[in-house]
């Protein structure tokens, strides 16, 4: 069956995140109060045909390793949603 996969890739903790820094600055300049740490990452949404949720998850993790995330600078996590509740 077809699953919807959502992959979230974010700069690894402790590593400089210039984009997050810039967004933080911009939001503060716009006068938004209470803004703490900001980090900007990537969101990948994908329809994936797989035999089971486990299989879909394994494949997505392999994709992150091989292509979607940089092992040196980024962390990622994978969510598998049954297609019904797909957001998009």
């Amino acid at each position, binding site marked *: 069956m077809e699953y919807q996969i959502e992959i979230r890739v974010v700069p690894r903790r402790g590593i400089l995140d210039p984009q997050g820094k810039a967004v933080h600055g*911009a939001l503060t300049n716009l006068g938004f109060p209470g803004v703490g740490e900001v980090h900007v990452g990537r969101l990948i949404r994908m329809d994936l045909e797989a035999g089971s949720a486990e299989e879909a998850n394994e494949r997505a993790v392999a994709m992150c390793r091989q292509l979607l995330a940089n092992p040196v600078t980024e962390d990622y996590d994978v969510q598998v949603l049954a297609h019904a509740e797909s957001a998009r």
Partner: protein
Amino acid sequence: MKVGVVTFPGSNCDYDCYKAAQEVLGAETVYLWHRDHDLDGVDVVFLPGGFSYGDYLRAGSIASLSPIMREVRAFAEGGGPVVGVCNGFQILCEAGMLPGALIRNQSLKFSSKVAHLLVERSVAPFTTAYREGQILRVPIAHGEGCYVAPDDELDRLEAEGRVLFRYCNSEGRVTDAANPNGSARNIAGIVNRAGNVLGMMPHPERAVDALLGSRDGVGLFESLAAHPMEIS
């Protein structure tokens, strides 16, 4: 005529625009600072290329919110001519002063080369020094120059003759192969409804000296000089 070039943090073609306006037009040219609240009485505003605020988040998004942009918007609403080149074009779209948006090149790569441009219309105040159908050689240098907009918006742009430049090949044919970034309908430069706000990805200010390979950008500056807009 007095020309103003806005410097945002991260602008890097402000100097080139400044020099081009000064050397081509012999016009008085001043830098405008992103935090300023007045335009120093200029007759033309340039939003130069570069990476304002590092182009973090989306190219031009943060710069479009800076104080000077309120003045630029008011100036444009009063009929004053505004030219946004490259990052300047992105800023104008982000500010909602031009329709559509500029996204990542289809190649996903930064593209730096000389592009051929077809002058689609010869109209005041930007392109009267060119012939319609004239082919220009102008450098491009951008990673997010793919122009997108909803189809009805694109239709309107064309119907109202607001597409001034399109990417073409050396014979002037508008082909996919000649499209350096995947822009919808090969659009390289457009104006707003009133016709006094121009956004374009290619860099006319880099094409004003034969020594550097092309003078085809000169026409844009000469057109501006020929049509001092009376600010209402």
